[in-house]
């Protein structure tokens, strides 16, 4: 198994490697697997490695694949952090990290807006899902503004949100 790497968001790279280069899965198969990995909690790419590894070589394949996707990046990021900690007192480095933090906040904000877009402005045959919008706002308020504990919040939000989706819809 090969370690997979990419910048910022790894998923497009993973897709390219699995579908286009190695041809382990076709596009539909990849989307199906991704749906599974997003359904179960945990880092998406690591989840993908677990399932794909298992398909090819069983439990050992899963462990190898997870080690493959995590060990290389981990070595890089730890080396980088260790190197930077040597110079972390320099104002130049502190200032650079300040700017880097702002860019990272922008990255997550862009991710949020990309995820929220299909909820707020769905393509025409699909109508706006007020239940989903309401639950997203509730989660934002609970965790982002009120800073309630995550476990307790999820214990309420997830069943309610899934329950609302399971309710029959009026046409």
């Amino acid at each position, binding site marked *: 198994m090969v370690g997979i790497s990419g910048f*910022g968001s*790894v998923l497009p790279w993973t897709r390219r490697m699995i579908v286009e280069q190695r041809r382990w899965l076709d596009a539909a198969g990849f989307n199906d697997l991704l*749906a599974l990995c*997003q*359904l*179960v*909690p*945990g*880092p998406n790419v*690591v*989840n993908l490695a*677990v*399932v794909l590894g*298992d398909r090819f070589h069983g439990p050992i394949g*899963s462990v190898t694949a*997870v080690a493959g996707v995590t060990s290389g*990046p*981990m070595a*890089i*990021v*730890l080396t980088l*952090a260790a190197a*930077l900690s040597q110079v972390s007192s320099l104002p*130049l480095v502190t*200032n*650079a*990290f*300040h700017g*880097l*933090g*702002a*860019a*990272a*906040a*922008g*990255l*997550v*904000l*862009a*991710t*949020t*807006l990309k*995820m*929220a877009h299909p*909820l707020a402005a769905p393509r025409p045959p699909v109508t706006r899902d007020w*239940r*989903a919008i309401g*639950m*997203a*706002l509730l*989660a*934002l*308020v*609970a*965790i*982002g503004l009120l800073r309630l504990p995550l476990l307790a919040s*999820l214990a309420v939000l997830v069943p309610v949100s*899934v329950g*609302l989706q*399971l309710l029959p819809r009026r046409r």
Partner: protein
Amino acid sequence: MEPYLALASVFGRLGLLAVGGVLSVLPEMQHQAVEVHGWVTAREFTSMFALAQSAPGPNMMVVPLLGARVAGLPGAVVAAVSFVLPPGLLVFCVGRLWQRLRGKPWLHDVQAGLTAVTVGLVAAAALLLARSAADNWQDWLAVVAATVILLRTRYNPLWVMIGGAALGAVGLL
């Protein structure tokens, strides 16, 4: 032993709460690392996350960075394994049942319900990061500019990160 146990207990719980991905648990991770355990300051946490996002690899790399800060290389490994193992076991089991589960009509609703919560949690993570990264209007402008560039162009996010770091280094932020 004590720092390892603390890392294992914090990250062991966080992994299973990462509904829809790592970003969902970022606010709770920050709360645990900054307020509960005092491993890092809020600003350091944001820097570590930013560093993890700038380096290649899955976005969970902030986890081993925090582990390394607490207890060196073994700490990084303990944090990463604790974070990955519980959801890994879960997805392994669900993966084996997937042939029977997939295509069930209710699954689509479960997915939609989870996605809604995920969107709210990722929004909370964005809010938290922006608030701890930005002190003045220039910083907020940089956050918004980075967001717009990432949404409107197809540049690799790495360039946006490098741009942010460069603006910071020359003292504009």
